[in-house]
């Protein structure tokens, strides 16, 4: 499982990081980065939850 982040759409609300800090980090400009290129199986559920709360739909789970 991978997560693609549309950094042009990301506004830095930070909800993904709040829900899943092991998967999402906001850089110094408050733009999201996905920590793992391939999300480890044990983090998949968190990755999904984090993508789900993005208020501007900038995160997409790809299987």
């Amino acid at each position, binding site marked *: 499982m991978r997560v693609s982040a549309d950094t042009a759409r990301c*506004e*830095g*609300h*930070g*909800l993904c990081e*709040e*829900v899943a800090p092991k998967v999402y980090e906001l850089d110094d*400009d*408050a*733009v999201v980065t996905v920590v793992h290129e391939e999300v480890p199986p044990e983090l998949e559920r968190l990755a999904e*939850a984090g993508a*789900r*709360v993005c*208020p*501007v*739909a900038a995160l997409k789970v790809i299987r």
Partner: protein
Amino acid sequence: MTRFRHQVASDVDLFSRALLEDPYPVLRELRDLGGAVYMRQHDFYVLTRYEDVRRADRDWQIFTSARGVALVPEINASQIGGVLASDGPEHDSLRAVLREQVSPRAINKLRGDIDRQAAELVDALIPLGTFDAVTQLAQRLPVQVVADLIGVPDEGREKLIPGADAAFASFGPLTPELQERLPYLVAFLDWIAEVGTRDRLRPGSWGAAVLDAVDEGRLPAEKAFPLMRAFLVAGMDTTVNGIASMLRVFAERPDVWEEVRNDPKLAGAAFEEALRLESPVQGFFRETTCDVEIDGTTVPAGSRVCLHFGAANRDERHFVDPDRFDLHRGSLDHLAFGNGVHGCAGQGLARLEARAIVLALTERVTTFELAGSPVRHYNPVIRGLQELPIAVTTRATAEGVRS
């Protein structure tokens, strides 16, 4: 046996004053009736289930905003082409004008200043002992903060709350109540046209940034006032009512107040849960661009569809025990800010303002109680309070009583 496509319909008037006193039992009936219910009064479909509302809000190609997000054609015609009532590249370019100003990365720098303003407001209220938490607190901070950010002068700001209230009311049916409010909307529009100019707006403000975008060719000149108005309106009743609903919970649930007071880090959770339970924007409209089937009902192309965020946020299919305020629910996926390309741009600012008020209160106030009955404010689209009488004591006043 042949299964016929059925159209699930209701005769309820979703915007009537009587219903809006407590809409939740009816909204639950509508959720149970079907995924998409045709409302004979006012001729629209309503989506009330969490997954349906969320999916539709994210699918702007089928549920378009570009034909307006209000109920009636007269109002939609006036909205079309604005940031709320556009899709795709047109919408993105409008939203981009203030993206760098409104985004959390920018507004987090304002945190100290907003915290200070909230503290000043609360400091002035404490000596009173009792006050109206709507007009004296919840309305005050957003008016100050948002008007300062847009950069409009102090004089005339009293037009903001009634103007925004009327603007939101216009999303609903054309009623005598709306007629009564229109003068406030006109006064607000005239004021923006008067003060939204280079010589009146504070240099460096969001309003000035809108004019910069016009000068640099990123924004057509005729879109400048509508964009300033959109941000001003969006930043008023929404934040005001979200904060007031949260304060009402504090007053009615001493257990919640005590917990937040002992652990102010819960301020954010309290605000999110208040937004879920009493979503300030109860619903916005979309229009279907093609026939869509929802839960066995075909919603024809060209239908007005209400995305009922307030109903979706109490959907028992998604939230356990949805009518209960639960500080530890952790439901950041509520739909009070919408979701997707039209997701609320100012939600970070709303969170900062709410948090600032909670911090200011928890640092100073010991007891936070009702001092009278809360009064509901009637607006067909916005859910909020007219009055919230509150009595507070501080440690100092409590000791004063003892000595």
